[in-house]
């Protein structure tokens, strides 16, 4: 008995076979990216006063993610995906995720987190610090503890990564997920060897 003999007959047209699956992964990628954009806007607002550079970075990321989400929803349908554009989006999203890991396991991005406070008048506001601050003679970056907002953002970005990977052609997808596997293994190795705290 051949395999084709037991497979149920698929009477759908090629478009009908493609479109629902495409739509599903398109929406997964778009929803993940758009939610990440919204969460980055929230993060920007909470960091605006004390870490304006970081807030600007969050806003820029949010804008790019918003544009990407719009492109995923409104862009080409069916088999018309631009593999390079999807790959670029996938790479960008993974870099944002890696930046989060670096920010919360090393001091490499510590300057963005430099805490500050103010007290211009006699009953001014309390000093605010985003995480741990060394009370030395000068500001030194410290590893910042993560928060739920950041973790939620990374979680939806990982969903977007899955959605974007699914939109790639089979061979490219396999290569892309293999690269993600290597990236993931490198992160774990970096942690095990103490490079990441």
């Amino acid at each position, binding site marked *: 008995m051949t395999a084709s003999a037991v497979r149920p007959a698929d009477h759908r047209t090629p478009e009908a076979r493609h479109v629902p699956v495409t739509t599903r992964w*398109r929406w997964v990628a778009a929803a993940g990216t758009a939610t990440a954009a919204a969460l980055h806007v929230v993060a920007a607002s909470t960091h605006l006063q004390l870490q304006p550079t970081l807030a600007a970075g969050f806003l820029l990321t949010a804008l790019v993610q918003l544009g990407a989400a719009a492109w995923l929803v409104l862009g080409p349908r069916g088999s*018309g995906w631009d593999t390079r554009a999807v790959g670029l989006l996938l790479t960008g999203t993974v870099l944002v995720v890696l930046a*989060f890991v670096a920010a919360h396991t090393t001091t490499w991005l510590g300057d963005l987190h430099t805490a500050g406070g103010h007290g211009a008048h006699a009953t001014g506001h309390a000093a605010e*610090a985003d995480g741990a601050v*060394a*009370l030395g003679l000068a500001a030194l970056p410290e590893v910042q*503890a*993560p928060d739920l907002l950041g973790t939620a953002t990374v979680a939806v970005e990982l969903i977007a990564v899955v959605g974007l990977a699914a939109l790639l*052609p089979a061979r490219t997808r396999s290569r892309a997920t293999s690269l993600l596997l290597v990236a993931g293994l490198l992160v774990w190795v970096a942690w095990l060897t103490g490079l990441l705290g």
Partner: protein
Amino acid sequence: MPSPSLSRRDLLKVSVLGTAALALPWQGVLSGKSASRIASSKLPRPYSVPFAVPPVLAPVRSDATTDYYQLTQKAFVGELLPGVRTPLWGYNGLVPGPTIRARAGRQTVMRQINALPATHPTLGYVPWTSTHLHGMPSKPQYDGYAGDNSMPGQWKDYVYPNSCSARTLWYHDHGVHHTAENVYMGLAAQYQLTDAIEESLPIPHGRYDVPLIIGDVAFAADGSLLWDDNTHSGSYGDVILVNGRPWPTMAVEQRRYRFRVLNASIARGYRLALSNGQPFHVIATDGGFMAQPQQVTELIVGMAERYEIVVDFTALPVGQSIQLVNRGVKNAVDYDHTGKVLQFRASGPATDTSGNSVPAVLTTPHEAMTLTPAMARATKKMRLKRDADIWTINGETWSDVERSDYERVFSHPDVGDVELWEIENSSGGWFHPLHVHLVDFQVLTRNGRPARAQERGPKDVVYIGEGETVRILMRFGPEHGRYMIHCHNLSHEDHDMMTQFQVGVHDADCDPRLAAPPAYGTPPAL
């Protein structure tokens, strides 16, 4: 283009990165048994550092009625950990600051000079200060009122009447919105008031009367203090300091010692006990001696609370040690060594056996302990609550007091009035050590039951535990004017769990901000 899809294998590949991205940033938080970032080799082994006490400050001058002291609040680089340089702020360049010993009936004038930097080097705020002598019924303008701030470069002479009974007090910074950071940097010290009754008691005196200023800090990689107030919940360190020394060992003779325990931590409460389970006596609370000593095996100490305890080392064999340990309180963030506080090692027989007892009756009951609910002219309810990232008292904060131009008050008794306050903390997530300025009060009930044995003396801070309701009873006076009420978790106080009450009239002579403002320039000789 083939149909988009993702195989199980693809998902597994992505999950390797996904789990790393989600888990690794949290591993330091979740597995953390230390808060410090400094190399563990730079932290001393617990009980390896010798014990020390802060020096006693001599007055710069005394006359028939008054002793004059001068203290300069300044930045310096000190050594809390052996061989590690730590930038600190201290009174006269000491952490903790020097102890002041005063006698009831003689007035103290304490000149405070703010020589701190124009801005905090890393947090960036202007380090204005306002010194509070905690436990003294000072006039409002000398009470460290929030808003009575001395800016860097200013000085102020604080006048303390020493009109109360003998007790252990402490002076610390109370600068509005920056108290936690300023105290964490080192602006805290003991002030011991004696009187004829205290001197006549056969309890340990002199070198057997020892301050224990307990705090907790964390260290950054470069040896500086590490500050993290956990989104205003409070700062928890992993290194326990006793009189500025990490987990020290104290040599004791085989006799009784009196310890003046002060919890100077920002947010950490302690449940103190001796490692061998030996009982000890509580002889005094915040407001001075209890009528009768209370024997306990554990002592819960919230921030700013003071307890005088007597520990008997008579039976401790020479060369043997016992430890003062911290069994922890609910919701404190504990680390590997926050259960250790101080070690006692018997050095030999007593070289002096005077003052080596704990009499069954110490003194007549403090006036606050004679009050009854029937004497209360008013009963007030106070709800302590977190509202978003702000801490509130009855839904209000110190900002509401400021917006009212300092007019808004929680209560307005006359001098001599008695009030009963019912304080409720419905949260299960944190406790609040509530401090009422000016007065000594009686802890009437805790959750409808009598106060703990350790609380059967006059208090000015009361530990309001998770889900607890505590009733306190107090008579207002002897001074009149406006005084603060606040949580002594200093991060809560700074964010903004503080209100005030007014006793009698508020007039120009007792305006806490205007009656005795700080001044710039070179102060005159004391």
